[in-house]
């Protein structure tokens, strides 16, 4: 499994990194930490590139490198990664391999985990989409600081599951909130939730929302099956049936200590683009981390 963690400024990236690495470790996944720098106008892109090469030569690294260094130190301090050679520091390891708008910060020393540090410059959706496409990432994890439109575009255009880390506290104890339905995306969300809950010994609240439709019976049956699946796997869980509008019900039910995991909408992409979807609305309105599985 491949996981992509997109980080921005140092102050706001701690929760994203922490939760991202917890998920990555639970899947024993290869992790890419990507910093997407500011978009450069085509008029100046070569000039900026020349200046950045110059700065690297003088050890005055471009801002993204320092953020990646901070991320690396943070992960080491939290023991998410372990350096095999403690005498080697970040600067000694640093080599920047540049190919167009993507740069790999190579680390010469050996490490216990497979971590790639990537610097990209450009429009964020475009860069993350390109990163996911070229490296087949399964989950993209990003902080919740961006605007709502950005989260919409991420879910719409990035070909991986997307997690928006909003209002996450590193030291708080979380439980998974798993809204289930009859979509393919929901099955994927159940898989991810099961693996993560088992690895981190987390409790799971499985819910479904009935809308007085013909599918209500099927939803109840899915809820029961999911409960059985988690119980058989030895995961502490409880089930709840809600009624009404799915978005309002889930948003109201989710608490600050919830970690919502739900499936992507099977709706037509054109409709989704212009009118949004239930999972996108939930991710935008919930005040806690939300994963939309694809």
């Amino acid at each position, binding site marked *: 499994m491949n996981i992509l963690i997109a980080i921005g400024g140092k102050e706001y990236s701690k929760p994203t990194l922490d939760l991202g690495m917890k998920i990555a470790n639970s899947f024993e996944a290869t992790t890419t930490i990507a910093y997407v720098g500011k978009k450069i106008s085509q*008029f100046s892109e070569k000039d900026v590139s020349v200046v950045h090469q110059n700065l690297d030569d003088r050890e005055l690294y471009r801002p993204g490198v320092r953020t990646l260094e901070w991320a690396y130190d943070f992960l080491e301090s939290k023991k998410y990664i372990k350096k095999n050679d403690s005498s080697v520091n970040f600067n000694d390891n640093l080599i920047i391999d540049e190919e167009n708008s993507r740069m790999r910060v190579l680390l010469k020393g050996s490490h216990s985990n497979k971590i790639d540090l990537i610097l990209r410059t450009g429009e964020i959706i475009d860069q993350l989409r390109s990163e996911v496409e070229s490296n087949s990432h399964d989950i993209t994890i990003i902080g919740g600081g961006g605007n709502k439109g950005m989260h919409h575009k991420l879910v719409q255009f990035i070909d991986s599951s997307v997690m928006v880390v909003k209002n996450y506290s590193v030291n708080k104890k979380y439980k998974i909130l798993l809204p289930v339905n009859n979509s393919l995306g929901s099955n994927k969300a159940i898989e991810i939730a099961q693996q993560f809950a088992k690895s981190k010994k987390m409790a799971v609240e499985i819910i479904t929302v009935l809308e007085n439709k013909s599918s209500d019976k099927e939803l109840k049956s899915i809820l029961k099956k999911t409960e059985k699946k988690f119980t058989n796997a030895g995961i502490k869980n409880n089930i709840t049936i809600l009624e009404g509008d799915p978005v309002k019900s889930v948003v109201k039910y989710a608490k600050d200590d919830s970690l919502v995991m739900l499936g992507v909408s099977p709706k037509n992409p054109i409709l989704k683009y212009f009118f949004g979807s239930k999972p996108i609305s939930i991710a935008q309105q919930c005040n806690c981390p939300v994963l939309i599985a694809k």
Partner: protein
Amino acid sequence: MLSFLDLLNKLDSMNESYKIISSSMLYWFSQKKWFVFSVLLAIFLLNLSTPIGLTVPGYHSLIILLMVFTLVTFEPIPFPAIALLTLVLQVLLGVAPPDVVAASFMNDAVLFVMGSLMFAIAIVHQGLDIRLAKVIIRLFGKSKRLFLAGLMTISAILSSFLGEHTIIAIMLPIGLSVVKNIDTKQTDGRNAVLLTLFSVAYGTIIGSIGTPSGGARNVIMINYLQEFSSIHIDYWEWMKHAYPILIIQLIVAYFVLQFAFPTTLKNIQIQGYKKKVAKSNTRNNINHLFSSIIILFIVTCWFLFNEQFGLGIIALCGALIFMICGMVSWEVINKNTNWGVILLFAATISLGFQINETGASSWMVEKFNVMLALMPESDLNLSWPFMAILTGLTANFFTSSATISLLGPMAIELQPTDISFALSAAIASGFSFLTVISSPTAMIIYSTGLVSTKTFFKVGLLMFTSSIVILYLMSKFYWVTL
């Protein structure tokens, strides 16, 4: 009958490949919406009747101009694609025959853009910043404020001859070295960093107005003047007009920055940097000596032989000498030269020529004068401030050289016998103080992550306004004495 929404819902039941295709198309649309918009706008305008007084080719050239403005501002397609589209449309819409378009595609201004970009890469590749840092420390190292003033002055002088994209690449490492470990969370530290970065940036931006070789826009305007008017201006003549403005602007910029970023400068590490620079061995670097000789030779040639050989050919000579001497490889130049920008300038200059040839610029000027006539009567000649502010503002959202290549013919048309109009337009377009997209310098300091667009605009507004006032006063009271 099925409604559109019903139809889309029916499509839901279709297979996954439909969803992938529609998702890809949506992504394409979301990325290219400004391209779609500009095409639709062009089609709409083409279907309207030609405005009275304007020829059909002239009208079509203005439609292409509008498309280019939209595409360059929002960048939905690569610059080389915009350049090719400009050329293709000129022929397809009957603005000019293919031979005429091809002939206007290459001239000395385009050669200058190409030569100066390649020359800049060759110079930056020599690593002259440490040697330059030694000179600045020797001359201005007595106090921190003097050092920053020196950084700004040296940046301006060098940028006036070698162009801002060359000098910002050399000077920025010096500026960043002295603010390397400053804590920017505290106001004093943050202001010290901003003061340093803006000193370098404003120095290079202001410097670029000083001589024709300071920026491509200057050469483009000289070229247009030669083609469209009887006025002729050489290297020295330009300097006599522009350098005093540069000096006054530098003084104003120094005080504007002190006012905008009050700081004690206690965190700036001049001493540490002085020691570091002293340790670095530059004494026996033969490349530095040769580089300096080549640079001096090229600048002298610009002074003495610009009329004989053209500024572009001389700039190309500079890059050529560096390559022949083996001081820079073709691979380095090829990798770092922005060929897209060269193509775009060539295409916009070609369009600029057609706007003039088809009479579109005269028509625009006529409309401009009609608009001015509607203003309340005043002793002031309003066309000058309008033109200077318009080019200055446009350059901030569209970059200076592209602005001059498209609006230059109209600025000349306003007063074909008065040099002050054309010169003011070229100089005002160099006031790229408002937005980070306006010049390579602005974009480079923005890309460090230490300067926000908001800060750039706030300080820039003060600088832009004072620069326009300085330009007006100089054109009114100093240029008339020359």
